[in-house]
């Protein structure tokens, strides 16, 4: 392979890798206005460097820390925006629709959409795949008094996610099987 061809292949490879990673990261809406109205808010932004730093401080001897370390080992970013309100709150649909529009891009698939009148809860789970491998996850969850957005970027091992059962209350979901949206 001559140097020009090698250079072209390298550029294409790394561009593809960068695009895959960038495609898995969505632009979360600016929900600072909700912070002012929420009784409790969680705003977490962890990029690759912070995740690596956190990994160094997770204790392998602690089962919870060890499991968390395994889950985040292939991740490039975790972004969480969560708000809790004292009263039922109407969430900004325009912002959520703008986020859903991003999730219509190639690579994104809606894995789960559940709506419950009983719980008044709506949960949507989207997965970004490159080939057959999940490289991103988005959760949009709205309850009367709680609204949460989660974006996870990186190589998500659904099996490892399953193994969190008991540690963070994650049950076996069968996420490897695409569940039809429940209306």
């Amino acid at each position, binding site marked *: 392979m001559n140097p020009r061809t090698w250079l072209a292949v390298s550029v294409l490879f790394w561009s593809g890798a960068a695009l895959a990673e960038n495609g898995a990261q969505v632009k979360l809406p600016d929900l600072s206005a909700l912070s002012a109205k929420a009784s409790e808010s969680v705003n977490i932004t962890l990029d690759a460097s912070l995740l690596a730093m*956190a990994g160094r401080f997770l204790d392998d001897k602690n089962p919870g820390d060890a499991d968390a370390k395994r889950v985040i080992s292939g991740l490039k970013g975790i972004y969480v925006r969560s708000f809790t309100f004292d009263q039922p709150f109407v969430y900004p649909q325009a912002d959520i629709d703008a986020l859903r529009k991003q999730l219509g891009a190639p690579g994104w698939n809606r894995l789960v959409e559940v709506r419950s009148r009983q719980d008044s809860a709506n949960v949507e789970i989207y997965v970004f795949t490159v080939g057959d491998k999940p490289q991103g996850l988005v959760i949009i969850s709205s309850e009367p008094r709680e609204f949460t957005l989660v974006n996870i970027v990186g190589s998500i091992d659904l099996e490892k996610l399953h193994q969190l059962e008991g540690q963070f209350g*994650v049950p076996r979901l069968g996420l490897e099987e695409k569940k039809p949206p429940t209306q």
Partner: protein
Amino acid sequence: MTSHFENELRQALRPAEPPDGFAARVLAKLPAGSTAPARAPIIAFRAASHVTRWWPAALAASFIVGIIATLMTLEHHEQLAGLRARQQVMEALRVTSDKLDLAYRVVRNASAVETNREEQR
């Protein structure tokens, strides 16, 4: 005229050896017991050289202490940042698992309702 004045000035200010016995006559005129001051310049000279000898070492020591203090401060800040990042990771995973659990419960409840309907048929 100026050069003549300069020459006279040079001549007047030229270094000259003292006459013989000059030092003895000056010492003889000093009050009794005034030999100690003759030593003071020597001690001052030795003290000055002592300080001069240790000044670079003191400066180097201060520099090293400053570097060590800076490194310890940076390490402390990094440790605080790492512990905070760890806390945020655990919180993020908790929130994620909580929402996944919510989806699971809704799906399970919907499945249970569907199963009951089929059994009643």
